[in-house]
C-alpha cells in the first residue's frame, strides 16, 4: 500500500460520546502498523446520529460510509473486513439524500474548522453579496424570505431586524441565543460544532443589516466542545479579515464574543438571557420595552436563535425567493427536525415545513428504538405538547400546530414507547417549571410546586376527580398569570400528558 488514504471521523459531541476519539487513535495505530499513509479529517456530523460514529473513507467513487464504528472495527477499514458495515456512499443514504439541506448543507461535508473548506462549499458568498447591499436591502431580503425565528416563538426575523435598523442609537448589538435548553434539541449544537463559520457569517450579515458593531454568543455551559470550536473559528475568521475592524476593506467593524451560561433553562428566554449577559440573575424582563429597542445594556439588540442566524447566509446567497419556495402557508423555508428519545433512526432531518409528524417518526425515524408500540411524542421541548397516534398526521407547520394546541418550538421531537407513564411526565413538567422558574410570577413559582403535589396525589390514587379539576384550574391561572412561556406554557405538557390518562381512566 502506498496511496494516501483519507478518512473522515466526526469531531462532534455525539460521535465523540460514542467513541469517535478512540476510533481516531485506532486508525493512527493501524496505519502505522501497516505502513499506510493516512490523512484523518475531523468533519462535522451529517446528523445521522443513530449511525455515529459514522466514519467515511474516500474512494474513487466518493465517500464511503461505515456506521457505528468502534476502535475494534478499525483494522477492517484497512483490510476490507468492514464491508458488512459499509452503508455505501454517504450522499446516497436515503435518510440524508431525501432532506432539504439549506441551513445544514455543509454539516458533515466539511472539516468544521477549515476556512478553505467553508469557502469551497459556498461559505461567505451570502456575506459578500450583503457587503454590496444597503442595510435596508438586506433586511428586505430577510423579510421577503419569510424566515421566522427558529428559537421557538417564530417571530418574523426581518420584522425584528427592521425595528433594530430603524432605532436611532450609536451602539447596537447582535445576540445569538445558543442556550438550547430543550430536551430533544441538539440542532444548534450540531451546527455550531459542524459549521461554526456559518453562524459567524450569519451574525456578520445581521450586524451589517442593523448597524451593529458588537455581537455576543450566549452559549450554554453544557456545550464545552462548542465553545472550543467556536473560539477557534472566531480566531480564524478574525485572522482572515472577516471579523474585527474594517471587514474585508468595507469600512465596517464587527466582532463577536462568547459568553457562557451557567445551567439555567430560563436564561434561554431572550430577556433573561440579556440579564444574564449583563452579569445578573436570569430574571425575565417585562415587555415592552422590546429588546429590539432596549436590549443589551439598554441598547437596540437583535436576539436570534443559532439556526435563524445560520440560515441568513443561504438566504442572502440564493435569494429570498429561493428560500421561500420551500415550505407552506406562513411557515416558509426549511427547519431542523430533531428525532430523539426512543426512536430507531435518531438524528437531524432538515426538511421544508409541511412534512407530517408521521413521516418524520415512521419514515425517517423507523419507529421506536425498543421496537415496542409508540405511545406519545413530545414536540417542541419541555413546554411542548405530548401528541399521540391520532395526531401523527399533523403537518409540521407553525399554524397547524397552534390550531392543535401544540407548538413546533425548536423542532425537537421526543418519542416514547408504551412503557411511558404519562402521569409521571405531567409531574415532571411541573417539577421542571418549579426548578427553572425565575421566580418573578407567583403562578409560575408557586403554582408549579402545587401542581407537582397535585399530580403526586393522583399518582397515589387520592381524590382523582377533585385533584384533576384543581390541576385544570391551576393551569388556567398559570397560563393567564405568567409573564413568560415558562409558566405560561407549562400547562401544555401537563394537560396533554393527562389527556391521555383521562382517556384511559374513563375507559
Amino acid at each position, binding site marked *: 500500500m502506498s496511496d494516501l488514504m483519507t478518512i473522515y471521523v466526526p469531531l462532534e459531541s*455525539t460521535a465523540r460520546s460514542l467513541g469517535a476519539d478512540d476510533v481516531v487513535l485506532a486508525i493512527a495505530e493501524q496505519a502505522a502498523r501497516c505502513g499506510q499513509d493516512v490523512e484523518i479529517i475531523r468533519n462535522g456530523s451529517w446528523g445521522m446520529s443513530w449511525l455515529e460514529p459514522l466514519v467515511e473513507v474516500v474512494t474513487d467513487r466518493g465517500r464511503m460510509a461505515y456506521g457505528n464504528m468502534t476502535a475494534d472495527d478499525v483494522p477492517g477499514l484497512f483490510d476490507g473486513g468492514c464491508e458488512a458495515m459499509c452503508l455505501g456512499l454517504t450522499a446516497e443514504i436515503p435518510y440524508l439524500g431525501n432532506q432539504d439541506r439549506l441551513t445544514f448543507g455543509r454539516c458533515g461535508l466539511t472539516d468544521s474548522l477549515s476556512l478553505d473548506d467553508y469557502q469551497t462549499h459556498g461559505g461567505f458568498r451570502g456575506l459578500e453579496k450583503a457587503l454590496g447591499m444597503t442595510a435596508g436591502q438586506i433586511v428586505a431580503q430577510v423579510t421577503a424570505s419569510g424566515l421566522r425565528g427558529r428559537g421557538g416563538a417564530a417571530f418574523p426575523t426581518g420584522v425584528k431586524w427592521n425595528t433594530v435598523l430603524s432605532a436611532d442609537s450609536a451602539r447596537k448589538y447582535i445576540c445569538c441565543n445558543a442556550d438550547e435548553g430543550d430536551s430533544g434539541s441538539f440542532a444548534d449544537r450540531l451546527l455550531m460544532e459542524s459549521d461554526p463559520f456559518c453562524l459567524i457569517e450569519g451574525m456578520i450579515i445581521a450586524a451589517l443589516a442593523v448597524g451593529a458593531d458588537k455581537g455576543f454568543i450566549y452559549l450554554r455551559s453544557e456545550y464545552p466542545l462548542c465553545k472550543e470550536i467556536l473560539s477557534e473559528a472566531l480566531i480564524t475568521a478574525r485572522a482572515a479579515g472577516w471579523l474585527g475592524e474594517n471587514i474585508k476593506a468595507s469600512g465596517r467593524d464587527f466582532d463577536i464574543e462568547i459568553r457562557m451560561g451557567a445551567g439555567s433553562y430560563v436564561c434561554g428566554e431572550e430577556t433573561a438571557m440579556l440579564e*444574564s449577559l449583563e*452579569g445578573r440573575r*436570569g430574571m425575565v424582563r417585562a415587555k415592552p420595552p422590546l429588546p429590539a429597542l432596549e436590549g443589551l445594556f439598554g441598547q437596540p439588540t437583535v436576539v436570534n436563535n443559532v439556526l435563524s442566524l445560520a440560515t441568513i447566509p443561504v438566504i442572502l446567497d440564493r435569494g429570498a425567493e429561493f428560500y421561500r419556495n420551500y415550505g407552506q402557508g406562513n411557515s416558509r423555508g426549511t427547519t431542523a427536525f430533531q428525532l430523539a428519545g426512543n426512536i430507531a433512526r435518531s438524528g437531524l432531518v432538515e426538511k421544508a415545513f409541511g412534512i407530517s409528524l408521521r413521516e418524520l417518526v415512521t419514515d425517517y425515524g423507523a419507529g421506536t428504538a425498543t421496537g415496542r408500540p409508540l405511545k406519545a411524542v413530545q414536540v417542541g421541548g419541555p413546554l411542548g405538547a405530548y401528541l399521540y397516534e391520532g395526531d401523527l398526521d399533523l403537518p409540521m407547520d407553525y399554524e397547524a400546530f397552534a390550531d392543535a394546541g401544540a407548538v413546533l418550538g425548536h423542532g425537537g421531537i421526543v418519542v416514547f414507547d408504551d412503557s411511558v407513564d404519562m402521569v409521571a*411526565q405531567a409531574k*415532571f413538567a411541573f417539577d421542571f417549571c418549579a426548578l*427553572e422558574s425565575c421566580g418573578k410570577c407567583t403562578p409560575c413559582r408557586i403554582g408549579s410546586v402545587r401542581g407537582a403535589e397535585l399530580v403526586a396525589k393522583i399518582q397515589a390514587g387520592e381524590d382523582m376527580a377533585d385533584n384533576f379539576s384543581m390541576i385544570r384550574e391551576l393551569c388556567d391561572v398559570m397560563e393567564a398569570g405568567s409573564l413568560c412561556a415558562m409558566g405560561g406554557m407549562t400547562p401544555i405538557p401537563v394537560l396533554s400528558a393527562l389527556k391521555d390518562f383521562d382517556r384511559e381512566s374513563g375507559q
Partner: protein
Amino acid sequence: MPKNTRNIVDWDEGEARRVIAPCARLRGGLLEALHALQHAFGYVPEESCALLAEAFNLSRAEVYGVRSFYEDFRSAPSGDHVIEVCQAESCQARGSRKLTAHAQNILGLRLGETSVDGHVTLRAVYCLGNCAVSPNITLDGKLYGRVSAERFDRLLKKAGL
C-alpha cells in the same frame, strides 16, 4: 459546566484577584468571573464574594444573588470524580429513571450528594444536548451517550471507581 474537580486548590486571595481581574474588565463579566473562580478553585469560595463585590462595584448580596441563581456555581467543592445523569425527557424515554436508580445504588448516593470521603459526586443534569443517543451522562466532564447500566459500570471501572 461538568468539570473534573480533582485539583481543588486551597483559598488563595492573590490567585482569586488574578482570576477576577480580566473578567472585571468585561462589561457584564460577573458570570465569567464566577466561571473562572470555579475553574481555578473547583467551586466558588465564600471568600471570593467580597472580592467580586469590590471588583464589580456591587453589594455582596447582589453577588450572592447571582451566584445562587445559577446551578453551575457551587459553594462547596465537588467530589474528586463527578458523575452527572441527565434527567430530561429524551433520556427519560430511554430509561434514565432506571439508570439513575442504578447509579444511586452502585454509588450509595442520591442525586446531589457527594460521598463522605469526597471521592464521588452524583448530580442531576437537565439536557446535555445529546438527545439522539440517550440516555446520557457525563463522567469527569466527558460526555457519554447510550449509557446502559452495563456501560455505566464499565465506565466507572475504567475511571477506577
